[in-house]
């Protein structure tokens, strides 16, 4: 009975074409839903690869393979007309097996390579990890396989228990050390490595897929941190606006104010010698080198000041410094310095460009000359050679604005303002009380439209009304503490690409050691291992030890199969495009790489560009062009991937194609021939039979 039932079930399932068709329908539905209704995937906290690697699809695929095998074996005779079907079915099975192997072993990620730099690691495309930094060293990377992706979790959402999963609770950071006895590397917990009495444990207690961290500041007698409170009035409403800077916190170290025109940064420095060094550096940003005959020298200069050039007899007055001077012809942006030169015999104006051996002189007081003087094709005074370089080892120059105030708080309670502008002006002002009131200008002059002619004197006077002088009050605050709150960004305010990159993810982690614990918000940090100095989560001291700890969330990092060096990067625009223009339409982007194979110790140059990856290790790995630095072309991003079982899938596809051609176009011919042969055979048989039945003609009588 049981066998009979089993036979019936077998015949209605694995041995049934209708069952196979039903499986195909289910497969199509699963794929269509998973791909067409992202909400379903997101409900299960899965991305595409996870959803299409989940057990339901695996079960359907397995059943389909079994159905194909059984039906092919039992129902399709292996005769010439059926070779095509056999081939197709075997091809589909081969393809599914190949795909299984592919996704089981697949690794894919990205690597960012700065120009000229060599990299050895890449970041996984999907898997995220918790990075642990102890005393400024990244000591452990812990994969967070079960971390959600799309929904928010935490006590506020009353669903924190859903994070109670393997890999998110009782995380014990570890580090690799060399065994003193055997000399071999081994992994031990941080507690063991540092001899801490209590076990160090991290638990993930919250997750936000798209959030920002809001910080408030206060004072606490137990704190040792120093910060700044900046306040200024809105030029229109008169309302006081306040912001805080805290040099020890990466997220609040610096910001832009006054509509982005001014950068402010806080640094705290107890060491008096370093403070003096910084003050000196603020006035030594432009280094001028001169040579006249055999007399050479260099000196630091500032705009608006006059200098004697050593014993040369020349005297200069630096008139202006332009950080963005477009060169004639090429349009290349360079830094330019203009100065009035007085030699023993003449006076003229000279412009020099940083890094360019060009000395452009302007003859003064010549008829028809412009305000700069008459530009000369050859230097007026070939005896004098000038050049300059910007020197900013302490990064005091503004990066994204025109002026920068670096506020220095010192160990003796002072506040020092190091003011540097891109026009080459700088100043150092000390405020012994730790409080400063600084006049700044908020410039709200609207840009001139295409229909407007050059401004008239009246309009220029009116424009002055858009320049509002306001007082920036800066106050030093000792014993400062900050409190971070996570703010989920409403979905209407989320950028899809940023969301997909995961850069706005935040987790809440609780670090526990014995009775002590601390809860910190850990935002996502791109390239966490390389950029560990820029981690923005709080650094805290582990109670009972002298160690400080900091955490970061980032994608998991793996070692590359080869070391990659970016030797060159170039953009190839469509004809007529300027590769330096952000508006140019780009035809191709090309990364010239030096690929070092660590196994063979060989190195070769290869170019990864659009639709043309660099294959490595006989095609087992590939590096393909994925993204680039559009502004400065200072880095490239390559996609990295292995290619397991690709050849199996290729064989499967070829078998399907050949089988289809056979089944659709060869099979009818074969069947027709078989029919014709059968008919011919039957005819022949019939004829033979007729011949056999025909009586022998009687012999003629002679």
């Amino acid at each position: 009975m049981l066998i009979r039932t089993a036979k019936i079930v077998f015949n209605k399932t694995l041995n049934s074409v209708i069952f196979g068709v039903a499986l195909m329908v289910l497969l199509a539905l699963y794929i269509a839903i998973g791909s067409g209704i992202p909400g379903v995937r997101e409900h299960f906290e899965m991305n595409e690869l996870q959803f299409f690697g989940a057990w339901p699809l695996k079960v359907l695929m397995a059943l389909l393979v079994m159905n194909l095998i059984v039906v092919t074996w039992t129902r399709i005779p292996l005769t010439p007309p059926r070779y095509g079907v056999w081939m197709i079915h075997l091809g589909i099975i081969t393809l599914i097996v190949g795909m299984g192997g592919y996704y089981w072993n697949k690794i894919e990620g990205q690597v960012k390579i700065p120009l000229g730099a060599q990299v050895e690691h890449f970041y996984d495309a999907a898997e995220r990890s918790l990075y642990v930094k102890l005393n400024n060293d990244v000591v452990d990377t812990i994969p967070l396989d079960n971390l959600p992706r799309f929904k928010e979790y935490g006590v506020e959402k009353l669903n924190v228990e859903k994070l109670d999963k393997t890999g998110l609770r009782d995380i014990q950071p570890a580090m690799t050390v060399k065994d003193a006895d055997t000399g071999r590397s081994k992994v031990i917990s941080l507690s063991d490595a540092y001899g801490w009495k209590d076990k160090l444990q991290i638990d993930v207690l919250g997750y936000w897929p798209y959030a920002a961290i809001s910080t408030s500041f206060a004072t606490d007698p137990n704190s040792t941190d120093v910060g700044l409170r900046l306040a200024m009035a809105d030029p229109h409403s008169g309302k006081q606006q306040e912001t805080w800077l805290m040099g020890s916190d990466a997220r609040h170290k610096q910001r832009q104010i006054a509509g982005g025109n001014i950068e402010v940064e806080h640094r705290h420095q107890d060491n008096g010698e370093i403070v003096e060094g910084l003050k000196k550096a603020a006035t030594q940003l432009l280094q001028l080198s001169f040579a006249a005959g055999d007399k050479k020298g260099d000196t630091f200069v500032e705009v608006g000041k006059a200098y004697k050039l050593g014993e040369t007899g020349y005297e200069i007055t630096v008139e202006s410094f332009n950080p963005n001077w477009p060169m004639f012809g090429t349009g290349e942006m360079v830094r330019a310095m203009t100065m009035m030169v007085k030699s023993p015999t003449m006076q003229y104006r000279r412009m020099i460009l940083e890094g360019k051996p060009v000395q452009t002189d302007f003859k003064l007081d010549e008829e028809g000359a412009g305000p700069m003087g008459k530009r000369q094709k050859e230097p007026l005074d070939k005896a004098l050679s000038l050049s300059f370089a910007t020197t900013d080892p302490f990064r005091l120059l503004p990066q994204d604005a025109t002026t920068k105030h670096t506020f220095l708080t010192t160990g003796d309670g002072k506040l020092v303002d190091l003011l540097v502008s891109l026009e080459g002006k700088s100043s150092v002002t000390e405020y012994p009380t730790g409080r400063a009131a600084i006049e700044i200008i908020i410039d709200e002059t609207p840009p001139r439209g295409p229909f407007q002619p050059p401004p008239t004197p009246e309009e220029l006077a009116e424009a002055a009304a858009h320049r509002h002088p306001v007082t920036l009050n800066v106050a030093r605050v000792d014993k400062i503490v900050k409190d971070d709150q996570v703010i989920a960004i409403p979905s209407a305010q989320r950028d899809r690409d940023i969301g997909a990159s995961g850069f706005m993810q935040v987790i809440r982690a609780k670090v526990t050691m014995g009775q002590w614990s601390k809860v910190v918000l850990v935002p996502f940090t791109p390239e966490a291992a390389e950029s560990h100095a820029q981690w923005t989560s709080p650094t805290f001291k582990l109670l009972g030890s002298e160690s400080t700890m900091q955490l970061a969330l980032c994608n998991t990092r793996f070692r590359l199969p080869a070391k990659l060096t970016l030797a060159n990067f170039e953009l190839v625009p469509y004809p007529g495009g300027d590769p330096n223009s952000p508006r140019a339409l780009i035809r191709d982007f090309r990364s010239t790489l030096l690929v070092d194979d660590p196994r063979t110790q060989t190195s070769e140059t290869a170019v990864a560009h659009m639709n043309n990856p660099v294959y490595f290790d006989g095609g087992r790995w590939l590096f393909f062009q994925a993204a680039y630095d559009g502004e400065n072309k200072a880095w490239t991003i390559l996609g990295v991937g292995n290619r397991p079982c690709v050849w199996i899938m290729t064989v499967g596809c070829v078998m399907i194609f050949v089988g289809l051609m056979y089944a659709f176009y060869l099979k009818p011919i074969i069947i027709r021939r078989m029919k014709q042969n059968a008919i011919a055979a039957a005819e022949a048989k019939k004829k033979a039979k007729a011949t056999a039945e025909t009586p022998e003609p009687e012999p003629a009588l002679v």
Partner: protein
Amino acid sequence: MRYLFAIILLAVFVSPSFAEDLVGKVNLDAFRKITIQDRQTLKTFDTFARQSLNTITGKSKLDGQDPVYTVLDIACRPEQYEARNIIKIKNVPLRQDFMRLTNLDAAERDRIIQEGTISLKFWMSPEVAQLMTQLQSTAVFKSKAIGEVNQAAGTLQNIAGRLAGLAIIPPPPGKPTDQKWRGFAEVVGNVKEWNEVAKADGRTPPAPVAGYDDAVVGEAFMRLAGLTVDWGKGHVDSVNEQLAKIPPVLPKINPSEYPSQLNRDVEIGYNKLAKLTIPGAFLYFGAFVCFLVSARSGLNGVRLWGLRIFLLAYLVHTLGIGVRWWLVASQHGNWFDGIPIKNQFESVLMSAWFGATIGLIFEMRRSRAIFGAAASFVGWLSLVAIFATPYVTGVEIGGEINHVAGVLMSYWLYLHVTLVVASYALIAMGFALSIWWLWNYYHSYGTLKRKPARQLSSDVVDLDSLPISGFGAGAIRLGFVQTLAMMLFVRRAPVVEVAKVQATVEDAGAIDARARFLATLDACNLVVLQLAFWVLGVGIILGAVWADQSWGRPWGWDPKETFALVTWIVYLIVVHVRVATAHKAWWTAVLSIIGFFIMLFNWIGVNFFLVGLHSYA
């Protein structure tokens, strides 16, 4: 002289205007054919003007005027357009957002909602700028709509008062060329008169661009300056003189780089004929009607006329592709990069062409008016769709010749996309045949419920022995060469064959003619779907090979990939349904319709509703 020239120069760059417009008084025939480099694409001024107006106003004409006239008028009399409501806000919800502005009166609010137009002056006002900034930060999904208006405003800004800024000067002669076309504003350093005026003003003249013949550039510059001033003053005769004399000067700057007269004439003609879509669609529709009539009536002569019109439609269609190919290839300097299959317009155009090719071959070989009807229907629908879509939806689908994303410049594109769009045409033909089958089924049996299907499927009919296909169908199976000869009036329908057909019709009387026709339709459907099935399969596989090279993995479960796979699975089910069920033809028709809609969603819908890597496909 110096002062006069200074005034002219001021006019070129500041563009005041003094006079009434020149509507209907200027001859733009020569000027519309000058070449301009816009978005790194060389095009005639005619094309540029039409595209620019489309971007700004959503229509290719303003006030019913020639777009070339309007663009020149904007360039020479910008103040006339600064406050005109000509910038179109296509996104209706964005129009609603303008209601938040408190400085608008009720009438103006209603106008913005109804017309959806605003002026450049309004767009650039601080209140609107503030509103847009706020919208972009609080409703990121509106960024695209805001970007569209910004692009429209930017296009207007680039034209308004900036005739000297348009890139109509070819690159300087000599090799290698930088292929960068320049506006007059960029080559003023080469103009002697300009340099003199600049010096007189105490300004340093800009450096000349090396390689140009300053005399020729200077002449062109002077004429353009004259055009600007005269247009502003309304001097018709002088304007017409400059409009006639500027075009011959420009090619002299670099004759080898300047597109040929033929190229420019063809481009303008191609655009005027709606890129040959409407003539093609018109002819396809005529052929479709003939084939349908022939299939119903059995009139062989009508089928032959259907074939003749179909062939004509096919030639127009092919010409449309050929001209486009030539025009695109001339942008790239080679034929390979010019293959027109890189955007939605081109892929639909090519898809319909593949369908027409296959339909024509089948129709001439099999001679049943059925393949012809299906292929001409697909051709007609496709050409109408690509012509009408930009007007109906306001979405540019690539009809205008411009550069595409660099990643598409790959030979894999041609292999993958060509096969996929060819399969789509076949799927569409299958859809038409399935609808036809179900229609006849319903009219034959009064129901769409399944009947014992063995009588209805092609299995009962040996196609090769079927001289006619039920219901008359008008078809005589004469073969490719004979049909071609008859189509071209080389020979008449053979009397013997017709007699044979008559005899067969009489012999066949015993069999239900309706069932025979359904069986024939099913057989034709099967031929088409079989082809669609494997062509789509190969297209998907080649796409996987390309994806492996471009994205580092052959299959990433991108929506475009997955829905192509789902489409393929539907036809895989068709193949198995024909083995496993008794209702072969019915299931084939129903599944073919389902497959068509999935294909359509994949081709068009995925781009609008889902996010993926195939955003340009």
